[in-house]
């Protein structure tokens, strides 16, 4: 991997992050309704609106407002929550930590399950096992997280079974076992949905690779099937699979928002929904920006991993 490539990718990340911050800011603060109206509601008095406008700096030009906000963000100052009056930064960061636990657990499980599943399905193409995997993954990709989460909740957390707690969160530092107990259902929901996505992708990449010329050439050299599958095909299929997993982090983030809401889990997603419901602009901006940047970084990492694995890209 050439340093140029890395510099270029980092540069893109920076550009992306800046544009994202603009979009987040523009959408929440400038378009189309006035933020003060949003906060105070439609029936607020004229004076109250003007006062709030002045207080929020809304009477200044858009780019000045943006710059004030963005320069604050760069220094770690996300503003003051309009709902609680606390600084947004520490709240959102601790929520981010909680969400990250859900995301990382799910992602690791998904990678461990879906890659072998996709490989096996592709190698038995058209046979019962493949059809079974396909059928289940169709169901998985067609089931929104909130439906699955609610059903799991209604079943496994019902008073009759009560296998897992219905909501809440215990920090890992206090009681690791209880913490695991609390995150099981959310992680299970995310894992099932994402596994369906990723295993479908891995399967289809494997099927394509297994039909490629070099796999045929290897077979015609007498290379046994197992070796073709793991040495020749898997390696080449992993490259696109990495990109797919990175893109699925987008779904994962969407899923995290929903799952946190269903299980009342104190993460960024829940803060975000609360912020929307309470018109808490600084919190909304901070949460959205954090999630979007996380996604962009995940994509960057995927690009770098791709380049590391794919010998060809260095020369592009």
């Amino acid at each position, binding site marked *: 991997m050439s340093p*140029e490539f890395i*510099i*270029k990718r980092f*540069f893109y990340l920076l550009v992306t992050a800046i544009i994202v911050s603009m979009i987040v800011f523009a959408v929440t603060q400038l378009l189309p309704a006035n933020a003060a109206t949003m906060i105070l509601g439609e029936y607020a008095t004229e004076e109250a609106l003007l006062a709030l406008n002045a207080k929020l700096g809304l009477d200044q030009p858009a780019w000045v407002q943006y710059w004030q906000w963005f320069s604050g963000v760069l220094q770690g100052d996300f503003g003051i929550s309009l709902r609680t009056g606390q600084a947004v930064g520490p709240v959102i960061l601790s929520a981010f930590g909680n969400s990250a636990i859900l995301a990382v657990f799910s992602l690791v499980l998904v990678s461990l399950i879906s890659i072998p599943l996709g490989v096996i399905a592709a190698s038995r193409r058209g046979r019962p096992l493949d059809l079974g995997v396909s059928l289940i993954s169709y169901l998985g990709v067609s089931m929104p997280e909130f439906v699955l989460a609610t059903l799991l909740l209604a079943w496994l957390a019902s008073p009759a079974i009560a296998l897992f707690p219905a909501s809440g969160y215990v920090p890992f530092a206090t009681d690791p076992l209880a913490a695991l107990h609390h995150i099981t259902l959310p992680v299970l929901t995310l894992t099932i949905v994402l596994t369906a996505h990723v295993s479908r992708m891995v399967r289809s990449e494997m099927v394509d690779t297994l039909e*490629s*010329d*070099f*796999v*045929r*050439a*290897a*077979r*015609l*050299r*007498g*290379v*046994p099937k197992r*070796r073709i599958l793991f*040495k*020749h095909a898997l*390696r*080449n299929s992993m490259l696109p699979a990495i990109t797919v997993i990175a893109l699925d982090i987008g779904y994962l983030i969407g899923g995290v928002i929903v799952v946190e809401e269903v299980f009342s889990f104190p993460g960024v997603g829940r803060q975000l929904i609360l912020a929307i419901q309470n018109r808490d602009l600084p919190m909304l901006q901070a949460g959205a920006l954090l999630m979007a940047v996380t996604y962009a970084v995940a994509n960057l990492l995927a690009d770098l991993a791709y380049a590391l*694995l*794919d*010998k*060809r890209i260095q*020369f592009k």
Partner: protein
Amino acid sequence: MSNTTQNAALRIDDYSLAYKSSAGVVRILDNIRLEIPRGQVLGLVGESGSAKSSMANAIMRDLTGVVAHESGRIFLADTDLTALTEKSMEPIRGKRVAMVLQNASTALNPTLSMGDHVIETIHQHQSDATLDSKNNIAAEAQALLSMVGLPDPKAMMNRYAHEISGGEKQRVVLAMAFACEPELILFDEPTSALDATTAATLLDLFGELQQRTGVAALFISHDLGVVSRIADRVAVIYGGRIVEEATTEALFAAPRHPYTRSLLASLPRPSDTRTGRTLDTSGNKPALRIGVVPQCIYAESCVSHEARVCNVSHVLIDEHGEHRVACVKAKNGSLIASPINRLDSVEAVDTTFPVALSMASLSVSYGERGWLASLLGKASQVHAVINANLTLDKGETLALVGESGCGKSTLAKAIAGLVPFKGDLFLSGNVIESIDHDYRSRVQIIFQNPDSSLNPRHSIKTILSRPLVLYRKNLNEVQRTQEVVALLERVQLPIHYAERYPHQLSGGEKQRVAIARALAAEPEVIICDEVTSGLDASVQASITALLKQIQRHSGTALIFITHDLAILRHLADRIAVMYLGEVVEVMSIDDLDEPPYHPYTEALLSSSPSVDPHTNTRRIRLKGTLPKRTQRVTGCVFESRCPHHLGDQCNTTPPPRVHHGDTHEILCHIDVATLAAHAPVWQASKLDTSI
């Protein structure tokens, strides 16, 4: 077929194969009877759709379709391959029978190094008795890479497919084929994806290795020239049946089957200039694959076909014999001779200003010059065309010749107004300030691949109407329809084709539509960019004949771009040879048959394979590969590969443009007299010493 069955490396016994498809059962191979004695090379020749590759797949037991029916047997020495399971084929593939696929670029795993590939092959088939250590296998692999003539085999072990050239890749594939000292190697169009000079060196290499190891080989190709160079015997396949099989000499000198005859008659030869021979342009229909099988597979296209004589029984090739043929009439000697084509008399074109198009110092460069690239100090430019000075007279054909990457297509695109260029372009003596509507209507381009140059979503009528709408605005709707019909007639297509879509046409028919589209504008110049390259020999001959005929009637000047030198004698008036972006030689077609040549042209001519019993070709081979074009060369562009390199001056000084007569100029440091003293590339020969 000689009676040495015991000694046969491969024996195919009445093998037939049919696949299932949605349209019904498709016959692939019919009663194949072939035998390859140990140490011999059998060439298998056929046009596209002849199922020649399916033969190799059947031998490897790697059938690509759903089998509807399979019969007969395939013996590798004493082993009946048709009786083996997929699992029991594994130890045979690569060990006893190896296969070399057409495209080495896709046959190598992009994530494995060349060393990994060769080591894997050896490792896979190593018997338990020789428990070699890893180092030994690696050493063996390296020795193999060195055996196939790869420079620096040690470094090559660690290279990946994208880091090496096409010729080098095919050498690695060859190393793998020879790795386990197989009894038989199957070659499926191994040189078709390569440039002529590279292909020639690879064929030499294979010949050498074959001599040394004594391996038997089945060499499949559509190119009779290539096969004639490498094979001991040749079998011709048409519509899934072998129609003729004989020694290479006999087959090419005295073909017996009407199909073989028509195939050979459509191929240009170096001796055509001397003999005045012209090409057979009748073409062959593709054979029927579905439904009732005709008694003689060639019945539909055969000029000698007579139902009374030919339809008496299933016409198959003789089981034994030195020169076997599947034709009733050939056996009883009642074939009519192929019609001999005569050149039509050429009418002189009346012109007031003789030069149609000319250019002065035309250069094209492109490449990475983005702001980020320049920010990072990485601004590499490719000089695709360097100072081209060419003129094209009215009504003449100028051939632009060179291998892939020489810049010939870029030059064509520049003239067609698709690529920006520096320098001047003149049309009928007037300098072109900008490529405008008027210029575009007067200069048309036809692309290589008609599959890609005709929009699949447009009907033929729409395709042919567009230039009429753009350039001939005075035509009304009715007149346009009439004109479309007239255009189809000019390119000899049925007029109901107007309602068809490109996918309903064959390759040759599509190219005719592309030609008609260029004619619609009534241009002065037509650029033909490799228009015959993707086509079968017989179709190629008929397309070139059509172009000649059109030119004769309309006086249009043609720029004919090709990598195939053989066809030029039947088409071009003058030739410009390009190498690495520069025009290194310009000559008239009459200069083609004897020196002087530019050293590169000499090698190119020698590499071009042809079937010609009347000619001997002198062997000149180039070393190395085409250099990268990102840096401008200070001396001669051909310096790194020139067999007649003079020393320092070639490396440092740009060569002068030297003239030989009025029509011939060469870009070379060597003086013309020396070049003229070189032995000719082709010499007339007697039949028996020809191959």
